[in-house]
């Protein structure tokens, strides 16, 4: 049994207890759904960790710098702004984000090749 499973499971249980308390007390559906799904998500994550492989991480390669994150972020922010300003900005943003993703893939492949 992994510790993370225990912790997330305990967390889900704790939130679940409060969700049930709320349900017994009689409450509108929305908070109950928000609450219940938080508990369920924690439980699901705990379950995933339980079945996923527990072996330690392989040695990591750590990049010193990468231009991909700022490009992807700029793309996403532009797309979001495009929702307010029009399709042209959505497309521009998507292009920038795609470029960033391409860069990221290239970087990762180069790293793996070493």
């Amino acid at each position: 049994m992994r510790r993370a499973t225990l912790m997330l499971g305990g967390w889900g249980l704790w939130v679940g207890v409060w969700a049930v308390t709320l349900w017994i007390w009689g409450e509108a559906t929305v908070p109950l759904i928000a609450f219940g799904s938080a508990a369920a998500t924690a439980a699901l994550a705990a379950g995933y960790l339980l079945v996923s492989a527990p072996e330690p991480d392989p040695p990591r390669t750590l990049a010193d710098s990468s231009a991909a994150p700022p490009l992807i972020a700029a793309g996403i922010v532009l797309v979001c702004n495009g929702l307010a300003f029009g399709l042209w900005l959505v497309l521009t943003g998507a292009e920038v984000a795609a470029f960033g993703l391409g860069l990221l893939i290239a970087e990762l492949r180069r790293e793996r090749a070493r």
Partner: protein
Amino acid sequence: MSTLAEPAPRVGPLEWVLATDHKRVAARTFALAFVFFIASGVLALLMRSELAQPGLQIMSTDTYNQLFTMHGSGMVYLVVTPLAMALGLYFVPLQVGAADVAAPRLASLGFWLYAGGGLTMYSGFLTAGGAGKAGWTAFYPLSGEQASPGTGMDMWIVGVVCAVAGMLLVAAMILLTLIRHRAPQMSITRIPPFCWTMFFTCAMTVAAFPILIVAMGLLFADRHLGPVFDTPGGPATYQHLFWFYGHPVVYVMFFPFLGVVAEVVATFSRRRLFGYPALILGLFAFTGLSMTVWAHHMFATGQVNNQYYSLTSTTLAIPAGIEYFDVIATMIGGVILLRTSMLFALGFLGLFLIGGLTGIIIGSPPLDYHVHDTYFIVAHFHYTLFGGSLMGGFAAAYYWLPKATGFLLRESLGKLNFALLFVGVNLTFFPMFLLGYDGMQRRVADYSPDAGLTTNNMLATIGAFVIALGILTFIVNVVVSMRRREPAGDDPWQGQTLEWATTSPPPRLNFAALPPIRSYAPLLDLRERRGEGG
């Protein structure tokens, strides 16, 4: 790619911007959060200037509404949350003996999303209708298309989404680092207190922030695609979604600074933190309860089960009492050194206490019926956020900046900095309790000259400028200390945790070698064994 023990390479501005090293990403987050802090603080000074006297003197009501919206949302989304995350991003890997965070590129992406989001929010000022002006909570229907038309409001919504999503990513990386990348000897009971506070902070972030993104998405859809919240029960549903994020975020902005204060108090008392297990269990209970209290913001709506939320909210006093006891007990029998960061830590304890105790008052529905949405609430959360979080933030700055920069800050200027802020906070925010109780509602540009509110408003305005002077002192201190550097050395304070076992600033991969880790205060263990008088 770096190898161990390689000194940090000197980098140009482009490299600094693109760096994925958790320390550089955190430094960028700090710097940007500080810029937004100054910007949102200037908005507050403008507001206080307007409120100094009854009547409208320097701005229109419309401008005022934009200012308080941007002040509140700026401080919450762009300043205090990122500041908390930046502390975690910088010091969690150092404290647990990791070379970097999990997935550094994602942490960097988080920073850039935050930067883009903040820029978008503030750019609203450049649009014809001005920036968002529906308050930091953007309650529906006021935030709907009909009551708040215009691009500024749209930009506010997408800006919030980007900024919050960015911080969510950073939090997830910190959480993963804590779970998967601790030094082999650091078992779960040897995690330092600050890291524990970050653990719970990030757990809350991961649980709560997505809900806000959903709420903002639905709000945007409501404005442009068709009714979402415009149904019976819709406005209350928006509030539920908002506060399901909005209350946990209060503790996201509190826990990390509590962790800092615990470390600072232990270090400057030359003692081990008292009651480690109780503190952690207290935080666990706190975190669980934090997800159950949100509707205490909605007592006056008459649409929630007030007694349930009053029960959970008031129960918070118990874990809070444990945290306070443990921190104070740490000092007992110690050798207390009143360095600047210790002063800020003590200031945190005193001021947050006032915020916390008034929090118990407003956790009682019949009392909240009177003071809700008044300056009483404004005073309460400024005592927790300024008196708490930011005092803790300054404690962290004086404690950890020497580690990050390699030079010490000036003590004399630091003490002046503390004195000005301590006086300023009380002068600004204490009168607000009286203002709210006496009948001044929140979010007003003007008030009646006959309501007996003038004196307290004037006091609060004077206090705000004292705070500004305090912040200025901090900037001067950083500049002076940077000009004539006083080297910090690896461990200027006799610290207890691993970050003090490496150089200042730490190398790219943080550690050349790790000391043995036998408790949550490994360096204190070493000193005790060498008989240096613990």
